[in-house]
């Protein structure tokens, strides 16, 4: 058995009123990749914040034993000094600065007041090559893609002489290709003796990369699963630990839903990039959705899925949009207005709930009614009683866990925020609902509830378009699947015919065709 590099013993951390961590134990061997999994709010990030000194020694109880000695970190610098480096979920790079400047931010090369830029860039380049980036460290961070930015973060960590690297949801904003590359990079580092802790919701990735998987639930460690066997640990096995019960079916069955007439028909839809008008982000796409049908649109990130959805939704994205749109068989005149799209009973539930979905500083009530204020107003004067009643109704219907609808949306968990977002659009009374990554970044239990809501929508005769980059979800929820790649729809399959393999094969084939 290898040497234990890190041991966290009986860690307990309380916030006012909440016990976030309760006697957590974690052992990480030198040179392994250790995964931490658990639902949102289980305490994974809190544990890592304790480890890295963000919550200083004394604000928690228990011991951190690192490399054989008890550590009392009072600042993140202390832990970094020992080679414990954490890479947070949200990228912490300054877009306007160069890669090199970013990598040595707060850790500048040189002495006294003078920064030695030659050393900075030379060293930065060295670490960039280690993570497989060919870019010069003198280019601005904003000019490279998210996937590469994540690699810059890792290079930055390496530059701090990391021995224990903690990656918090490193692939959450990456597409599959970049994710795979990142995971392989991690495996490469492991061979060189680096120890890593990865926090992730993506269980397939965890199963692929981790040697051991520790499950945290409700602030306590439930179990540590060994992943050294021939076959990777099954996702079901991990989920069982996370939710505390066997999830026999991750996708609820949709029964007795009659699929009706075509409700939305999009033909020869082409959208150009708003800033680079010569670039087509959606290229001659034709899709249709029937009443009561759930249509999945699968594609990697950047395939043009969100762009397609937003351009249909009141042309809220894109330039030079052409093509025809029919609702219930009747052609609809194109207008660049979201209010117009809502009037035509289209709803777009965004993938970015914090960015353009919810007003976090406002209450559940205000957010719920936002897209349909007329329904609760008399002559443009809001009837707050009606509004309150509506918000309450949706809170119950969607099982939003909150003390009341006056609660600020910013105080809710990701899953509950997603439900508020759904509530807003369900209240808008659409016939056609476009759900863009409806389960991104929310935990397994909440996902199941969202799936149930999608089924209810279909049962109510709505046409549902579900965009997702999680293949199992698309396969599990859709009646029919469109596959998008490089701005085009490259395939259409019935759910009964679709498999993980033939979808990926279709994408690869189209990629070669270019």
């Amino acid at each position, binding site marked *: 058995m290898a040497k234990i590099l890190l041991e966290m013993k009986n860690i307990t951390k309380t916030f006012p009123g909440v016990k976030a961590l309760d006697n957590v134990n974690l052992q990480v061997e030198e040179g392994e990749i250790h995964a931490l999994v658990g639902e949102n709010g289980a305490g994974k990030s809190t544990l890592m914040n304790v480890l890295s000194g963000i919550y200083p020694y004394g604000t928690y109880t228990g011991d951190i034993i690192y490399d054989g000695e008890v550590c009392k970190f009072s600042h993140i610098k202390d832990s970094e000094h020992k080679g414990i480096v954490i890479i947070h979920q949200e990228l912490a790079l300054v877009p306007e600065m160069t890669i090199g400047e970013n990598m040595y931010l707060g850790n500048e090369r040189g002495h006294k007041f003078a920064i030695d830029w030659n050393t900075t860039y030379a060293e930065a380049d060295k670490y960039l090559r280690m993570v497989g980036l060919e870019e010069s460290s003198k280019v601005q961070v904003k000019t490279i893609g998210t996937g590469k930015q994540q690699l810059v973060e890792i290079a930055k960590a390496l530059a701090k002489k990391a021995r224990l690297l903690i990656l918090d949801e490193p692939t959450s904003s990456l597409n599959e290709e970049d994710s795979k590359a990142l995971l392989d990079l991690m495996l490469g580092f492991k061979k060189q003796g680096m120890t890593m802790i990865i926090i992730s919701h993506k269980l397939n990735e965890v199963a692929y990369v981790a040697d051991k998987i520790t499950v945290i639930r409700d602030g306590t460690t439930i179990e540590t699963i060994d992943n050294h066997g021939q076959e990777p640990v099954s996702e079901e096995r991990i989920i069982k630990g996370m939710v505390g019960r066997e999830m026999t079916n991750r996708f609820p069955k949709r029964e007795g839903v009659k699929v009706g007439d075509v409700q939305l028909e999009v033909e020869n839809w082409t959208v150009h990039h708003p800033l680079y008008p010569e670039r087509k982000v959606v290229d001659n796409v034709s899709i249709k959705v029937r009443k009561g049908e759930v249509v999945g649109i699968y594609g990697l990130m950047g395939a043009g899925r969100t762009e397609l959805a937003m351009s249909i939704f009141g042309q809220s994205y894109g330039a030079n949009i052409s093509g025809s749109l029919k609702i219930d068989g009747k052609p609809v005149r194109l207008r660049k207005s979201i209010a117009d799209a*809502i009037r035509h009973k289209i709803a777009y539930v965004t993938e970015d709930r914090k960015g*353009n979905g919810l007003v976090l*500083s*406002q209450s559940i009530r*205000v957010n719920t009614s*936002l897209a349909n204020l007329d329904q609760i*107003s008399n002559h*443009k*004067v809001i009837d707050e009683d009606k509004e*309150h009643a509506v918000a309450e109704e949706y809170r119950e219907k969607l099982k939003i866990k909150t003390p009341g609808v006056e609660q600020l949306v910013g105080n809710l968990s990701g899953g509950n925020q997603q439900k508020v977002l759904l509530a807003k659009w369900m209240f808008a009374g659409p016939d056609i609902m476009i759900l863009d990554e409806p389960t991104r970044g929310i935990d397994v239990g909440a996902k199941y509830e969202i799936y149930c809501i999608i089924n209810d929508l279909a049962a109510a005769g709505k046409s549902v378009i579900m965009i997702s980059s999680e293949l199992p979800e698309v396969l599990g929820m859709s009646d029919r699947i469109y596959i998008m790649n490089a701005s085009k729809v490259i395939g259409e399959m019935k759910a009964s015919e679709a498999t993980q393999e033939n979808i990926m094969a279709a994408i690869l084939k189209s990629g070669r065709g270019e």
Partner: protein
Amino acid sequence: MKNLLMFLKKNTMLVVLILVYLFFMVMTGGSILKPLNFNALITQNAYVYILAAGMLMCMLTGGNIDLSCGSFVCLVGAVGGVMMVIKGMNTGLSIALMLILGIAYGCGLGYLIAYVHIPPWIATLAGYLAFRGLGTSILSANSKTGSIAPLPEDFLKIFSGKVWQTKMSVFNWPCMTVGIVAAVITVAVLFLNRQSRIRKGYDADSMSTTLVKSVVSAAAILFVMYKLSRAGGIPTVLIWVVAVVLIYSFITSKTQVGRQFYVVGGNIEAARMSGVNTRWVMFLAYLNMAVLTVVSAWTVMARFQAANSTAGTNFEMDAISACVVGGVSASGGSGSVIGMVIGATLIGVINLGMSLMGIDANYQKVVKGVVLLGAVVFDILSKKRKG
């Protein structure tokens, strides 16, 4: 008791206002209580309430401000003065033309900010510089002293003076009657609201909180109106201020358009994706600001009975301060008219109190600066504790 504490916690600025008032009562030996000083408090600060109502709407959209309003007050005054005094135009027509000038400026400014995406502080900084120059040059071209006076009687009557004026020595019963009616209505509204919330099964204030609210607001109204009754009656400008306050309270708390201001400030992208015409909201904010600036210019002209080149100096700062002290978020999305009223009153009381104490004008500025900073620090700290 717990409810009372909650009430005090929620209305800290109100408590501060009362404490500051008591402080000046002691320091000025009670002279701040004199009826004339009440009159002064209202007439001297009327412009702040009116401008701050407009500034509030701008700030709600995302902490945007209007730096040009003070200078625009000067320009409107100059144009109005020339029309009414030099050209001898009809007062009603002049008022209408001044309003049209405001609407024209508001449309232009709103267009630049909402549709051309010029950052508001830059677009209005240009106005800040240009209007002061333009106003001053119009005035000096038409008058040797740089001031046009006297404005016609009928103009002054609409924006200054007193309603049902009596001599100072006589108790003004009409004024007191209005005060009593207003107090009764306020209390009735508070209780009826509570009743209706309870009937519908919503959270309502406890009986004791409603009582405290009723007593405090009724007492405040009666107190002010009693003092005004002994100072010759209701200042005409008070009616304008009350009208603006009531209208904007209603707009911000009850209407769709008011709601849209809050959500645009809270998350402009989310508002846009929910079908809110965010550009139109931004446009409205600045159009509205320009219109209210004209109203405020009228009250200022009437108060000085003249159009001056110094009129409106630093008014934009007074309006911003009133909003910020009143708890309007400097990053947008939150704030209320009632908060703004308390903020404006607090600054007014501090100004008046310090003047009565004979404090040097320069030190007064220092105190105001500290109060402004203190209010923001307090606001941010109290939010932190909650989060």
